[in-house]
């Protein structure tokens, strides 16, 4: 193997001077960089012993299990009313995705990873994309696996509307990415931002539809809530899980417009502050 490689190399000597890489080559390098960064982040995020990723699965399973036990003990899981397990899962998992991508990955993203730029093929955008991609993929994997298990076990009904569920999930990912970039830029720009994010996050997550359905709100509150982009993602996933029995309010175009706008601002902010960040260890 080694010999073959050396032969290949020697065939190409002297190496041709290529001032610019072709597209194929660039794309290849780009994919290798992203691959490597995601794996680096995978190891630091979930640990080497693989239990980390399993924990990501255990959280929603545990939640659903507790809810099912509680409702079964109180004798109310009769399948005719709301499916509480589906309700909890369709609120908890998008909420996790949002938290992981926006604040989980976003806070101090630049300070933590600035050192990586010593490698010339890594750009700050690579780092941002790799980090966010891993958060998205990890949570998506957890969602897919947990949902499959629960559907096979018959705890929740099969997904009623795949389009709404997938689009809602992607919208949540897009919003998480956008706000993650924004938070990364802001936390790099000013240290005080980091301190005011938790209360804001608390308010945002409690008022955005993870724990209730927008249809339950009075008209006025519903109007206010649907201005927020997060509610559209939650409602979309919920529509996919709970079906047409429950009225849901979502507008994916509106949500994705938000995601696009916030992503643009966030990426611009990262570009603007990147060079002037002190490395924080």
């Amino acid at each position, binding site marked *: 193997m080694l010999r073959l490689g050396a032969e290949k190399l020697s065939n190409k000597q002297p*190496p041709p001077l290529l001032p610019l890489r072709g597209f194929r080559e660039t794309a290849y390098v780009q994919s290798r960089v992203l691959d490597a960064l995601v794996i*680096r982040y995978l190891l630091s995020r979930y640990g080497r012993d*693989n239990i980390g990723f399993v924990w990501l699965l255990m959280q929603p399973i545990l939640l659903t299990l507790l809810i099912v036990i509680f409702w079964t003990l109180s004798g109310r899981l009769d399948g005719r009313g709301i499916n509480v397990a589906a*309700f909890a899962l369709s609120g908890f998992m998008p909420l996790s995705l949002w938290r992981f991508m926006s604040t989980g990955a976003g806070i101090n993203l630049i300070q933590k990873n600035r050192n990586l730029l010593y490698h*010339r093929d*890594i750009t700050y955008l690579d780092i941002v994309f790799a980090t966010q991609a891993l958060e998205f993929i990890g949570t*998506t994997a957890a969602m897919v696996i947990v949902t499959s298990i629960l559907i096979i076990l018959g705890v929740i009904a099969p997904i009623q509307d795949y389009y709404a569920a997938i689009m809602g999930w992607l919208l949540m990912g897009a919003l998480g990415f956008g706000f993650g970039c924004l938070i990364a830029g802001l936390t790099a720009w000013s240290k005080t931002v980091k301190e005011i994010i938790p209360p804001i996050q608390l308010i945002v997550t409690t008022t955005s539809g993870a724990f209730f359905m927008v249809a339950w709100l009075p008209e006025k509150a519903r109007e206010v809530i649907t201005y927020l982009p997060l509610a559209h993602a939650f409602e979309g996933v919920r529509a996919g899980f709970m079906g*047409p029995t429950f009225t849901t309010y979502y507008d994916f175009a509106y949500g994705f417009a938000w995601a696009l706008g916030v992503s643009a601002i966030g990426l611009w902010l990262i570009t603007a502050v990147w060079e002037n960040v002190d490395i924080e260890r």
Partner: protein
Amino acid sequence: MSDRNAEQPGTGLLASGQGFLARLRSSKLDKSESQPGLSATGGKAIVGEIVREYGSASNSRRWLVGALFFAPTVLAILYYGLIAADRYVSEASFVVNSARKESIGGLQSFLQVTGITTSRDDAYTVHEYMRSRDAVHDLQQRLPLREIFSRDEADFMSAFPKFLGTDSEVELHDYFLERVQVFYNVTTGISSLRVEAFRPEDAQRIAEQLLLLSEDLVNRINHRMQEDAVEFAQDEVNAAQQRLIEVQVDIKNYRNRELLLDPEKASLAVVERIGELSGELALANTEIRRLKAASPKSPRIATLHERVAALTAQIAEERQQVSGASEGLANKIAEYERLILRQGFLVKSLEEARQSLDTARQESRRQMLYLVHVVRPRASDIPQEPQRLHQILVIALASLLLFFVYWLVRTGVREHATSGR
């Protein structure tokens, strides 16, 4: 970025170890080739690693994996783009109401999972019927269901005897459930019926007939409910009447047997008679005393004494009649009174039974179910199903998400394998 020196090794910041460095190095290969100034000795090892990692064997596996995750999308594009037949949707909505109406919705429905209102129960009754094989059977009496689901317009995947399926009642029912959906909106309390068919008028006809059949069902339920409740009360009334008649007959028999119309009155007459006789006896005794004092030798005294004896005997006889051991009136009165008392009770219970019959009639009228049409089914002029772009998008995105899962698990396992070495 290119001004950064990529060859600065061991910065010590790459805490996550070998796998990352290896991957990163492999990505730098192209550059070390393009930049002649860089060391070629590192290059050899790197190339070896690349070949090892992305040799022809794993390359073909990559293709396989790629094909596996791309195939569904390609198939979806082919099917939805070229083959899939148009389906027309006809929608109707209805409410199952009873006169006592409770609506429950929103947060309440979440908190009161068990507190299902009756009108919702009734709606579920109708839904259950609409989804049943019974409904499919009844529909077939009115519509050529098999023909409708296997029109010429249909493609081989969506037509009724399904691809690789059989033409059986059970599969027709399964197919029917794919084309007909009924659901209940918790917020509004309105039930919706959605029928898909290959021709717009077919969908409309199925929806119409299903609604008519459901109306029949509701009427049957009403009839049954009314009959059950009212019939029971009517039985009660009949039984009470019967018993009353029996008592009446007993009283008549008693009277015939005892030759008495009313023993109470008869006994009163006897008592009166005793009173009269006692009065006469007293008069006679007084007369005797008076005569003994005035003219002791009067011949009337003897007659009076006879009279007193006769009266006393008569009184004794009459007394015997009232309270005699077996033939006495007192016994007869007791029996008579029992009969009268029973009659009184029965009259009362008949009244009560009549009242409960009235209430049952009213109640059943109040419990009547109504199937109210909110939206009548219409034929649509454009096909709404299948939503081709949506379906393709869903399948593509779902395969992508599944690929992510695959990638994550594969990478995790792989990293684990290298770290163990």
